[in-house]
């Protein structure tokens, strides 16, 4: 402890105040009484929380976001797990390049990706809006899946796979009976990370939403443009609650050290 001086402790405290305070401010504001966002509020109520459920657009887009995030994550898992398995398990020429290719969607500016998909899927191919939205989300969360699954496969001892084979399991049985159960925490964490990123996405959705099909973050952005009441703050608090639960699951499954060891 003697390496940490008093000034360093104070500095760290201030930096963390910077990280935490805005979210605390939102939370306190959400419990305000007045029509306007005010911190600290003059009086407290939960009317804006109730109001969240009154705004029909929020409820509808929440369900759409949920649906898109779930389906996109599911498809990304179906596509991503086998790919992550092969690039972690086997050594072959071009493996590194392929890995970079699978992770490349994070390198593309999302707004550019959204615009390009919009141009291609909606304008050129005339796909339904929802399909386009789903495809966009699936592609951009594939890297999250591949990265998390690869990380948990890195700790997987392939000798136990050989053990299963020699005791009579074929390759497919081995995968489902031995490999999958041992990376289940990675699958859960990958699901949640992908889910959160899909659920929170704006830049891709902003191009791929259309008449009748919008997501919650998009709806929140347009709400903020016109109204400045604590409804959004209340909704934010509810979303933070969701984040808390999901983070808890990640902590349980993958361990938060995943975030510091990229």
């Amino acid at each position, binding site marked *: 402890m003697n390496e940490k001086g008093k000034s360093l402790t104070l500095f760290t405290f201030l930096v963390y105040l910077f990280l935490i305070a805005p979210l605390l401010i939102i939370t306190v504001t959400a419990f305000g009484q007045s029509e306007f966002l005010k911190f600290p509020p003059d009086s407290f109520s939960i009317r804006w929380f109730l109001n969240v459920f009154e705004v029909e657009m929020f409820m509808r887009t929440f369900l759409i976001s949920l649906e898109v995030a779930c389906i996109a994550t599911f498809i990304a898992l179906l596509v991503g797990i086998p790919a992550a398995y092969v690039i972690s398990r086997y050594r072959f020429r071009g493996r590194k390049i392929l890995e970079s290719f699978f992770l490349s969607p994070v390198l593309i500016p999302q707004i550019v990706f959204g615009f390009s998909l919009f141009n291609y899927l909606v304008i050129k191919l005339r796909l339904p809006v929802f399909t386009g939205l789903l495809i966009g989300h699936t592609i951009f969360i594939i890297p999250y899946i591949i990265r998390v699954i690869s990380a948990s496969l890195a700790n997987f001892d392939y000798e136990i796979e050989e053990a299963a084979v020699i*005791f*009579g399991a074929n390759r497919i049985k081995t995968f489902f009976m031995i490999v999958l159960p041992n990376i289940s925490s990675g699958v859960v964490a990958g699901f949640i990370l992908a889910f959160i990123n899909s659920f929170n996405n704006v830049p891709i959705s902003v191009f791929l939403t259309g008449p009748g099909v919008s997501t919650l973050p998009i709806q929140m952005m347009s709400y903020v443009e016109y109204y400045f009441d604590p409804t959004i703050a209340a909704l934010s608090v509810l979303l933070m609650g969701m984040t808390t639960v999901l983070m808890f699951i990640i902590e349980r499954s993958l361990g938060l050290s995943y975030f510091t060891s990229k």
Partner: protein
Amino acid sequence: MALLSLDDLTVSYGDNTVLENFNLEINQGEFVSLLGPSGCGKTTTLRAIAGFVNPGSGRIVFMGKDYTNIPVHKKQFGFVFQNYALFPHMSVFDNVAFGLKMQKTPVAEIKKRVQEMLELVGLEGFAQRHPGELSGGQQQRVALARALVIKPDLLLLDEPLSNLDAKLRVEMRVEIRNIQQQLNLTTVYVTHDQEECFSISDRVVVMKDGKIEQYDQPEVIYRYPMTEFVARFVGFENFLDLKEKDGRLVTNNGIEFKLDRNDELAKYRVAVRPDDIVIKEVGGDRTANVLTAKVKISTFLGKEYQYLVETELGEFVVNAATVNRIKNGEQIELYFPEENIRIVKEAL
């Protein structure tokens, strides 16, 4: 006829050929060890027998049938891995039962056989534990039980004791040998530990660079190494070149050496253990098999001294239980008793 034979087996990883035209025969009920330094191809041989690596050419014949291309999971082989490779998400019971379940054995029978096997390896009462809750030795026993319970046609063990401490290693090897004899199991065992290998095996394959140097009973290998490599491996540290002159064998500086055996060779290289050379005072009446030497370094080993001595023919290592330490620089004579001298093929 042999139970298992490898005929002209060639195995390579990419450009690296590990085994080339490799031949080996193993009989029913035999315990055969593959011994050699790392990289000699012993593990590859074992993995080829199991089917984890595919030979580029050659055949594996088992019980008279061609086994070369039979998928791993269709063979009835037991395998014990170096790191045990227990299924971490399954209990001890489920680990051991795995092979039986794959064979669709009735549940009642699985229960009975797993129970019997756990008793055999001394793990009754551990059935519901998970591998992570067991010690290294216990994990080793589970791995063994898992391989034995399927009544394998062939048991393959890949350095199974290398992760255990010395005392446990000795205990386990006795146990493995007992079980193997009890069940009359044909076994192939990979190790780099000479003592372990000699104590447990019926026959030993000493390997180097993907080739067999010698394949024989442990006693024969220990006493009569055929090549310089094997000789060094089993503790022969002194080597001497002899040539034929007027029907006698002499060293390069003309001293006659009498040998136990007289093989017909153009060139003789002989090997002697440090313990098998006798130190004498200068001036004995014997002249054959004697070299004069000077002590360079002496080390106290406990029951004896080890001397590094210098002769006209190079340095020798001699272990001798002399009463007092012979001083450095002192002149001595080395006597090589003829029954202790082995003719070996030179290393390439």
